[in-house]
């Protein structure tokens, strides 16, 4: 519609222009003003006039065809335009801003901006896709952990949990993972355990002074609660093996999906007789348990050649000389148990599942068992 209106005006103007052989001007106006001399025309054509003087000349030229025809015929009219503009017209912030957004600049700036936007969006989309894949795997991993933890708990409940003290169901086991604890700068901000003592060492300071129990209870009293006999190990083993096999399959899938650069997997579980899982992928699953704000950090840690292993359905990450259960969160209190101590022997007797893990992992190990964090060294 607008275009047709423009065309109508175009035709009307062309008709008016064609109806007079020469330019149609107001004779009255021309007679009242002086024609421009050659010097003035040249100054106008070369852009050497002040704004006010130029406006006066423009007003005359708009009504004087002869002066207009001379001005238009001067080659310096075009030459001066193609060169730098007269200072009166080029100064000011708006002139510079206009020059910045001139077609000549936009001709190249717009495609460059579009390309940069496409690259940026693609990068973000790929990254999001990667994180989503990690989320999927980590969710599967956490489910596998829960399933593994439930039978473990059921098995160990006979040895550890007193009927009076209902065993902590797997579902209610707090998600004490790295991210939550690491995120809480204040160790006393333990989300699940009541009254964690202040001064709780963060995960990175496991070699520091041992922490007190989370519940502030004497260690021995924990084992006095275990009145039921330990469950037979056989039922556990199949569970462990099936979980491990499942994890291994998931590891292989994840490995195919990513270009994992993590370190070699940990030593194989002899009872399982299977190849150990890829620590990198497994830790990636753990990573997915983390909130989104921590995932990036964890992914970076995953990428940074960290050593991981899976034992007894638990995932352990090497930190210094210690193997840390990935379910362990910084700031959580640990129960310190020395290998060979009476406490150790009692604990191992009561918790064969724990014993299997601890005996496979030599040296210092931090493991979450029955909702408690044990630091065995």
């Amino acid at each position: 519609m607008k275009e047709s209106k423009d065309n109508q005006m175009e035709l009307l103007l062309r008709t008016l222009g064609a109806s007079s052989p020469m330019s149609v001007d107001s004779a009255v106006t021309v007679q009242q003003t002086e024609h421009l001399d050659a010097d003035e025309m040249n100054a106008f054509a070369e852009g050497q006039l002040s704004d006010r003087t130029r406006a006066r000349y423009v007003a005359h030229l708009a009504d004087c065809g002869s002066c207009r025809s001379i001005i238009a015929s001067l080659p310096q009219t075009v030459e001066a335009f193609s060169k730098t503009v007269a200072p009166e017209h080029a100064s000011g912030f708006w002139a510079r801003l206009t020059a910045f957004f001139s077609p000549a600049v936009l001709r190249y700036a717009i495609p460059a901006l579009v390309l940069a936007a496409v690259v940026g969006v693609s990068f973000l989309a790929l990254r999001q896709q990667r994180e989503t894949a990690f989320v999927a795997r980590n969710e599967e991993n956490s489910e596998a952990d829960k399933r593994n933890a439930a039978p473990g708990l059921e098995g160990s409940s006979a040895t550890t949990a007193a009927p009076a003290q209902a065993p902590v169901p797997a579902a209610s086991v707090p998600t004490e993972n790295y991210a939550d604890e690491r995120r809480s700068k204040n160790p006393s901000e333990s989300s699940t355990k009541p009254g964690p003592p202040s001064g709780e060492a963060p995960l990175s300071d496991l070699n520091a002074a041992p922490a007190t129990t989370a519940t502030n209870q004497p260690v021995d009293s924990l084992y006095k609660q275990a009145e039921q006999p330990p469950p037979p190990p056989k039922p556990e083993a199949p569970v462990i093996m099936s979980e491990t096999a499942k994890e291994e399959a998931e590891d292989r899938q994840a490995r195919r999906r990513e270009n994992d650069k993590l370190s070699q997997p940990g030593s194989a579980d002899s009872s399982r007789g299977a190849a150990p899982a890829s620590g990198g992928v497994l830790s990636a699953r753990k990573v997915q348990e983390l909130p989104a704000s921590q995932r990036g950090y964890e992914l970076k840690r995953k990428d940074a050649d960290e050593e991981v292993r899976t034992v007894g359905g638990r995932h352990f990450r090497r930190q210094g000389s210690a193997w840390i259960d990935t379910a362990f969160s910084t700031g959580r209190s640990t129960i310190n148990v020395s290998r060979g101590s009476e406490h150790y022997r009692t604990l191992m007797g009561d918790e064969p599942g724990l014993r299997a893990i601890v005996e496979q992992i030599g040296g210092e190990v931090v493991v979450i068992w029955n909702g408690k964090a044990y630091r065995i060294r």
Partner: protein
Amino acid sequence: MTVNSSQLESLVADGAKRLIARSGGDSYGVNTALLEPRMRAAVEKYLLRDNPEVQPQQIASFFDTLQSDDLCLIVACENGDERAWTDLVERFSATVRSAARTASSNEATAEDLAQSIWAELHGLRVRDDGRPSGKLAYYSGRGSLAGWLRAVVAQLAIDQHRKQSRLVQTEEDAEFDRLIDHDGDGARILPGSVNPEVATARKFATDEMQKALAQSIQQLDAEDRLLVKLYYFDNLRLREAGAVLGVHEATASRRLTRIHTDLRSRVERILINEKGWTETETHRAFSELVPHLDTDIEPLLSESGRLTKRGSEIAG
């Protein structure tokens, strides 16, 4: 603060000294006494006339932008310096010849025109002081000497063409005035019209529209009016019309689009308020009459030897 006359004289004297110092190798012995009247006239013509409140430093800057070499050369020529005349002809004969060729239809006319230029520059009349009076006195040094010479050639060409042409400016202006003020009773019956009554009615309506358009064009501000005149009446390309106004072709195109809208509303207002048309008649005239104008003006364009507009230069 307005610059008084004594301040102006002081500024002119200082400016003349600086100009001579700026002129490269040869100032042809031109002294400040010869330059000062020229420079005073230039600052009054290009600065003080439109900017009475100009500051002293603006006047000083104005003098510093004058073309020192060219101005010294011209002043020396005007002073009768033969060496300066020789240099002028030697340096600018090619420029004059090129400009004459552009302004002329053939080589012979161009050669005559070029020769006339030098006579005009030197001047055939003699002033009271015995020196020839020519166009050299009109060069202020504001623009380049080569550009000034091209303007002089173009001006002389127009003058010569008018003397030889049967159509003169006043007649064309009168015709335009008639378009605006008078009712056209000499409506031309276009050839090929089957129904004379319909053709007459159409022509009458078209004339009314053109009068309203001419009136609307006169109401535009100077810049817009100049652009319309350059593009539609002088048949310049959009790029050339933009160059006269000192704007890019795209800017000129956008301005024309805006002017179309402005003119249309003005024309409609004139037709409705002054000519007594209804809105329906006005809109129908635009939609039904105007498209036929392309056919109607074809003979006119052929007669004038001008081609139709090359493509659509105006942004839609």
